[in-house]
């Protein structure tokens, strides 16, 4: 055991406790960046590979439909611990909460891609009257940690 004087011991103690208490957030920062980056890259590739966009918010499209059906896609999005912490710091000053901002636009992009794939897999040619809805999923602790994004529309086959 190395004998430390009181001042050094105090510094070591402070540094160690700060590092340990922030360690989960740093871990979340590193892992979250890696995970979300890889998922977003995958989404961009899926979008690029899909080709022509079948989604439209129009109620009617020219042409006679032979078959139709309701298509629904959903996703629950949440921010990482790190993003949540950054978000609450941002919320003190107001303005754009960049972490939630990014998470929600990513979620919408993902859910629309799912609807496109849903449309293709169900054998429809296009989706008309597409709507997007967002709602809060309350946690049992009362803190909002997740949001659900739903995309739905009518799939039609020509």
């Amino acid at each position, binding site marked *: 055991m190395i004998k430390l004087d009181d001042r050094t011991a105090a510094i070591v103690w402070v540094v160690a406790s700060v590092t340990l208490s922030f360690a989960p957030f740093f871990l979340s920062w590193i892992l979250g960046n890696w995970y979300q980056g890889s998922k977003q890259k995958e989404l961009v590739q899926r979008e690029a590979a899909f080709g022509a966009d079948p989604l439209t918010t129009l109620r009617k499209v020219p042409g006679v439909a032979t*078959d139709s059906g309701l298509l629904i896609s959903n996703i629950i999005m*949440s921010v990482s611990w790190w993003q949540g912490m950054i978000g609450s710091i941002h919320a003190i000053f107001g303005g754009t909460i960049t972490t939630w901002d990014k998470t929600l636009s990513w979620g919408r992009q993902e859910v629309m891609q799912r609807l496109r794939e849903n449309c293709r897999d169900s054998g429809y040619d296009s989706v008309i009257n597409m709507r997007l809805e967002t709602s809060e999923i309350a946690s049992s602790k009362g803190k909002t940690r*997740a949001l659900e994004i739903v995309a739905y529309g009518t799939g039609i086959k020509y």
Partner: protein
Amino acid sequence: MPDTQQTQPQAQIVMSNTETIPGKVIAESLGVVTGSTVRAKHIGKDILAGLKNIVGGELKGYTELLQEARAQALQRMVADAAKRGANGVVNVRFATSSVAGGAAELFAYGTAVVLQ
């Protein structure tokens, strides 16, 4: 419960979120049909979701849970329509509201119609 399963006899009911069923003509309107369900999260799923939050992004467990719940709400709406003798539901809308204690209500409604 029987209405949690995707029963085949109701499969011929066509749904749409537009005013008409594309390519079909509406003969008669039978009024508003509704279906709802209230679901709470599993405590285990809640803990897993908390862990998933280390990296953020999608919470797959909840996505599936809400998907099932919405399917059930739709199923109940379709059952209501079938009871009225409809063969289509137009202008389907969804609403979600959170109920105390971490539960969510999923609600689906639309207009039951008879197609020619």
